[in-house]
């Protein structure tokens, strides 16, 4: 079916003076793109899930780890070491290594992608917590804030810029990595990129642009979120 598509496009569009583009596998054939965009809808939606879910899961896990490491500093090196080691496993190998353990499918892809986000998000949350002014923490404690009140009311809000910066990096890398989900049957835009031996450039470029668009959209949303939740950073010194 995938092999047949370009020829079908030729038949339909030979009146548009672009007859050469598709059979010649030109860099980008707009008419083909216009006629076949609907093929990209489902993979794009799958791709959105493959980015959003690992980011959310990774954030929750990394936040938990960061809070533990923040309170028990001696736990920081082992957690950094573990997430770092996981991060350095070659990505394709990791996807394939997971399949004998948990089988193929979207869940496998989500697990692998989640693991890849941990190191970045964890590091950034800790960096954010470390940057909280010592005076604010001391004053907070001295006024009778409990450890939890200080964490949720002072430290984490003040760490938000670094935390969001970490999420933005993680999103861009996850959007790209998620194309590998296709190798474990996880769907996503990878299905339009890794199509077998015959590479059709227009399809490749469309899928890549969509991956980038997804990354940019999430990135923009986070930027917007950051502006909304950190109003004090826009306050102009009097």
């Amino acid at each position, binding site marked *: 079916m995938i092999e047949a598509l370009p020829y079908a496009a030729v038949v339909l569009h030979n009146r548009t003076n672009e007859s050469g583009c598709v059979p010649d596998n030109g860099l980008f054939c707009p008419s083909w793109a216009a006629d076949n965009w609907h093929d990209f809808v489902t993979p794009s939606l799958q791709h959105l899930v493959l980015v959003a879910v690992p980011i959310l899961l990774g954030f929750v896990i990394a936040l938990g780890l960061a809070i533990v490491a923040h309170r028990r500093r001696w736990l920081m090196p082992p957690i950094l070491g573990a997430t770092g080691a996981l991060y350095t496993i070659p990505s394709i190998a990791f996807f394939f290594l997971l399949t004998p353990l948990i089988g193929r499918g979207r869940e496998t892809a989500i697990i692998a992608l989640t693991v890849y986000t941990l190191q970045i998000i964890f590091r950034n949350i800790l960096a954010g917590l470390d940057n909280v002014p010592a005076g604010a923490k001391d*004053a*907070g404690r*001295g*006024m*009778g804030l409990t450890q939890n009140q200080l964490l949720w009311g002072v430290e984490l809000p003040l760490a938000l810029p670094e935390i969001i910066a970490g999420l933005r990096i993680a999103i861009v890398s996850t959007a790209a990595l998620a194309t590998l989900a296709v190798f474990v049957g996880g769907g996503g835009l990878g299905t339009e990129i890794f199509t077998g031996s015959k590479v059709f450039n227009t399809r490749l470029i469309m899928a890549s642009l969509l991956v980038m668009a997804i990354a940019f959209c999430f990135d923009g949303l986070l930027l917007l979120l950051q502006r909304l939740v950190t109003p004090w950073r826009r*306050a102009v010194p*009097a």
Partner: protein
Amino acid sequence: MATGSAPRDGENNGTDAASVVYEHVTKRYPGQESPAVQDLSLEVPAGEICVLVGPSGCGKTTAMRMVNRMVEITEGDIKVGGTSVRDRDAADLRREIGYVIQQVGLFPHRTVAANIGTVPHLLGWQHDRIAARTSELLDLVGLGADLGDRYPAQLSGGQQQRVGVARALAADPHVMLMDEPFGAIDPIARERLQNEFLRLQGEIRKTVLFVTHDIDEAIKMGDRVAVMKNGGHLAQFATPAELLMDPADDFVEDFVGADRALKRLSLMRVSDIDLWEAPLAFVGQATSEVKLKLHRAEVPHVLLVDSQRRPLGWLSERDLAGEVVPEHPDSPAEPRLDRDDVMRDALANLLQSETQYAAVVDASGEIDGVLSVEIISEFLGSPEAREEEHPAAERPHD
């Protein structure tokens, strides 16, 4: 002392201040050979400012931070209002004790109003009550109510520290802990903040533990001053005047500085000293009469006054050469000092002027007496002066 060092009782517009009593308090940090604070005993009466002063590393901050259990006590006990701090839940205890630090430590992500409302919020006050208290406090520390909506980054350093003080006062604490509160502020603004705080303290009468490394600040702010030396020893605990008059040992003497006599003068007013009586002359008076007075007087010059006894000028020998006292004397009555002038400023005035004598007037401008450099130096050296500051029985003198 601007606030006066007499025991303060009577009016009090908030929660009663509580005394703070250190009982043989020692703090040892694990892994350190010598204690940070060693066997510290001192009593801060309710409503007084006690300044802990000493070189860095003397344990003054540690001593202060044990009151609200930011540092845990190793041995001994601290009682706030008669209750041991060790028996209290740390967070509850801290909500009853105002806390001001050098870095101010305002929450950058919360508005000024929200910062001030921190402790009331923790205590579960109603929203309206917090808002009312916040604007009351902004006013109390001399900030406009419109600043409530700003973020800390939008304030100057001095304004931030005012907010820090307001935040510490929010829930009307029994005790205030202030750790070098004005240390990071430029000298001019610091002076103003110190004066404002003393004025404020005149109204609120909190028990204040104030940490500083600056002896001048200690003398200015303290009703009592605890001088600490390295190893967490208390070298002397006394009123500022006692400290300057009678340093307990060489360390304290060094620490208060070679200019301690001058510092003492800054604690006194002209009215605190016995002035000399000037021979007075009125316009038109016979000079023979005046010359007679001059013989008996301590001051070798005659002061011309008007009918309301307000000084007009000093009469020279030439002025007195005629039959009657002239209307316009040779030298004006400068410097003219006020009874309420700080003695240190009075001395500076004297030293700058050409005469050795200064006419001191009361609030209505009437002559009260004459101040001279001699009086001041005699006063500083006299045993009578020493007795004035503390009971003679307590300290025999060399």
